[in-house]
């Protein structure tokens, strides 16, 4: 795997190339509403451009969510099946605080940060005691417990039970319907900032240790790294990011339903990561975009049965494209570059 994080000179050039390409993509996305308006002849804040922005906003939110998942799966190498817990907590915390407590956005942001942090530490401490598929099982069980509680009639007053919360009052200046363009830039900025933060973290000394744990946990421990602590850091960090994605999700959809805590939400994260390519930051974000568009196209062609097609696509990807789009691309590139320089490969 050629990562943009290695010290290789060629990799450094590649990083620069990535940065340039990335910049162009961001620029394109930033100009997208106006480009769309140019193409369709409709104003950027109405009609088709507005609708397309909506699709992209959802994609940005899921991009952050998928990225957070990949920090666990792709970088730390631990398979969690309970990621929806963090996302859903973010959604519900935001929805409940807006609807019942009428907090400001800044306070809510801090609250979500704090809640998911505590959640990450608590559940990480318990579930990281086991490894591999046990971890997957245990996290799934914890997440399902949250799902069940979100549907419990006992808390209907706060959570709306199986109906969820609807009509969440958001401040007018970022109302996703009236201020679509503004919300578009908010979501884009959010995804961009989270990406930059995540990139810094995975390239920090701690981030490198996390990758080392993925590669060979015993060896990392023998070097003197307390692997449990690092795994916990990764778990909490990933959880907090997922929670923030949930917060924006609530602001965008103006509702909170138990579905955000269900297994399907976790499977979505998995799907985006697998499609895009685990172990890279760009991959899952790309995967989120692909999935969002694919979902849109599939739901138009297949109607209500599109999740079924989706499941089949997922199975096929697991069987035949295990490294995802970015991973396969990287491998293919690394392969073609070693062809010119046979010294790189072992005898």
């Amino acid at each position, binding site marked *: 795997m050629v990562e943009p994080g290695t010290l290789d000179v060629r990799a450094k050039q590649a990083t620069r190339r990535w940065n340039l390409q990335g910049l162009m993509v961001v620029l394109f996305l930033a100009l997208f509403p106006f480009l769309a308006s140019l193409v369709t002849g409709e104003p950027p804040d109405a009609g088709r451009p507005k609708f397309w922005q909506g699709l992209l906003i959802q994609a940005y939110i899921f991009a952050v969510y998928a990225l957070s998942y990949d920090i666990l799966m792709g970088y730390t190498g631990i398979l969690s099946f309970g990621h929806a817990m963090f996302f859903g907590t973010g959604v519900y915390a935001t929805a409940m605080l807006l609807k019942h407590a009428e907090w400001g956005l800044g306070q809510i942001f801090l609250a979500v940060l704090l809640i998911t942090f505590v959640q990450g530490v608590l559940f990480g401490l318990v579930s990281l005691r086991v490894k591999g598929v046990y971890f997957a099982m*245990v996290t799934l069980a914890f997440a399902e417990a949250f799902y069940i509680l979100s549907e419990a009639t006992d808390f209907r007053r706060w959570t709306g039970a199986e109906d969820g919360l609807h009509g969440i009052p958001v401040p007018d200046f970022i109302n996703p319907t009236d201020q679509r363009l503004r919300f578009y830039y908010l979501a884009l900025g959010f995804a961009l900032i989270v990406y930059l933060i995540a990139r810094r973290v995975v390239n920090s000394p701690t981030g490198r240790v996390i990758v080392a744990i993925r590669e060979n946990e015993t060896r990392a421990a023998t070097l003197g790294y307390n692997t449990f602590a690092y795994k916990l850091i990764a778990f909490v960090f990933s959880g907090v990011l997922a929670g923030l994605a949930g917060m924006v999700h609530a602001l965008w959809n103006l509702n909170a339903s138990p579905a955000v805590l269900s297994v399907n939400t976790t499977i979505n994260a998995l799907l985006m990561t697998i499609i895009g390519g685990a172990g890279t930051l760009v991959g899952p974000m790309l995967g989120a975009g692909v999935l969002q568009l694919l979902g849109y196209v599939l739901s138009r062609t297949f109607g209500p049965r599109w999740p079924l097609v989706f499941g089949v696509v997922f199975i096929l990807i697991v069987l035949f494209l295990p490294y995802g789009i970015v991973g396969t691309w990287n491998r293919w590139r690394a392969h073609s570059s070693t062809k010119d320089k046979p010294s790189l490969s072992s005898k």
Partner: protein
Amino acid sequence: MRRYRAVLIALAIAVVGIGLVGRSMKPGTLVATLLSGLTLGALYFLIAAGLSLIFGLMDVLNFAHGTLFMLGAYVAWTWVQNPHGLLLWAGLVLAVAGGSATAAWWLNWSPDRRPGRWTRRWLVAVGVALIGVTAWQWLRWPQALTLLLAAGGGLAVGLGAFRPPVVRPPHRRLVWRGVAVVGLLLVTVLLDAQGPTLASAVAGWGSNAKFVSAIVVGTLAGAVAGALMEWSLIRPLYERPIYQVLLTLGIVFAGNEVARAIWGVGAKRMEKPGWFGQPCRSESLAAWVYEQCASVTVLGRSFPTYRLFVIVLGVLLFVALIVLLRRSRLGMIIRAGVQDREMVEALGINVRQVFTLVFALGAGLAALGGVAAAPFVGVYPEMGLEYMLQAFIVVVIGGMGSVPGAALGALLVGLARAFGDYIVLSGVSLPWMEKAVRMSPSIARASTVLIMAIVLMVRPAGLFGEEE
């Protein structure tokens, strides 16, 4: 000894727990709650035993195990309600299976024909597309043509998924495989021709006959689905365990959607067999034998007789499994294989075949659980996930790979659920509270996770698990 210590700890917890809660209960209520717990425990055990066995032997955590449970329930329900439709679908599945079997057999027979890598992928794509179209058009096209198409799709998938061996297996074995393939295709044709007759015959049966045959059909369907799943999807991924887990999760997703597509979203209830169905109340079990009432009096309270049947079923299967593991050659192979697969193979035993068999066995057990559950918890798309989660908790508590562990875990979780339900429904009153707080059963359902967390803190490998 260690093992018994685990059992003692678990029993002690159960006894103390029941004692604490039971103090405030009338004896009739206590027994009824205990029996409810046992009923749930029996269901959990049926799922957890297979899950645990499969994991122990082949290191596969089958997330789709709950889907097989659901499949059993749906198939049984359909068998009782609409045998005709079920036989139609069975024909389709058999056609696909027959096609893939033919392909695999043919590849074994002629080692020179090796489709290239890309050819294989294209074949898979074509095959899947064919099956998809067939399924799509299923009810519109003439049946024989559809079956033919499905078999062709299966053939393509088989060609794509199986790598021909470098050295041909012995002649004798190939002949046997050929016989099996032809047999499979024959059954398909037979089903195609005689399906409607059989279906109308089944529709005319009484409720007891329907129920017994539903148990057989549901279990078989689960076992066949499990074997097919292992053979086609999981087997290529034994080298990549993480992807195996991802794949089974994908099957959960797809399975739920398939169930919704075929059977719709609503809950269905399977009719109880006549033996447990008369709208009356027997005074004792002996009286029930004559009256066949739906409920029986236990210490002054009525308890559904069907649930007693589920408990008996669970206990019987536990005993049968233990006997199978301890006494039979298959059991010996499983016990040895859990420790060292490679060495079992070096003794000349085809472990892959045993894997498929055990997968089918586990899947069959889960499906049987589904059939048993259908008349009293209903049939709905989410049931697979719901029961599988409890089964996960059961195996985490009991320890992966141990059937007695699964039984003990199932017992604990079942009892916890039953008493939890009782507590939350009757209300919790602590000394400083003015009135008891009542809660919904969801709370009890979610709180079994707590038991798992506690066990994990104390014994990460579970009560019966071996520490590494």
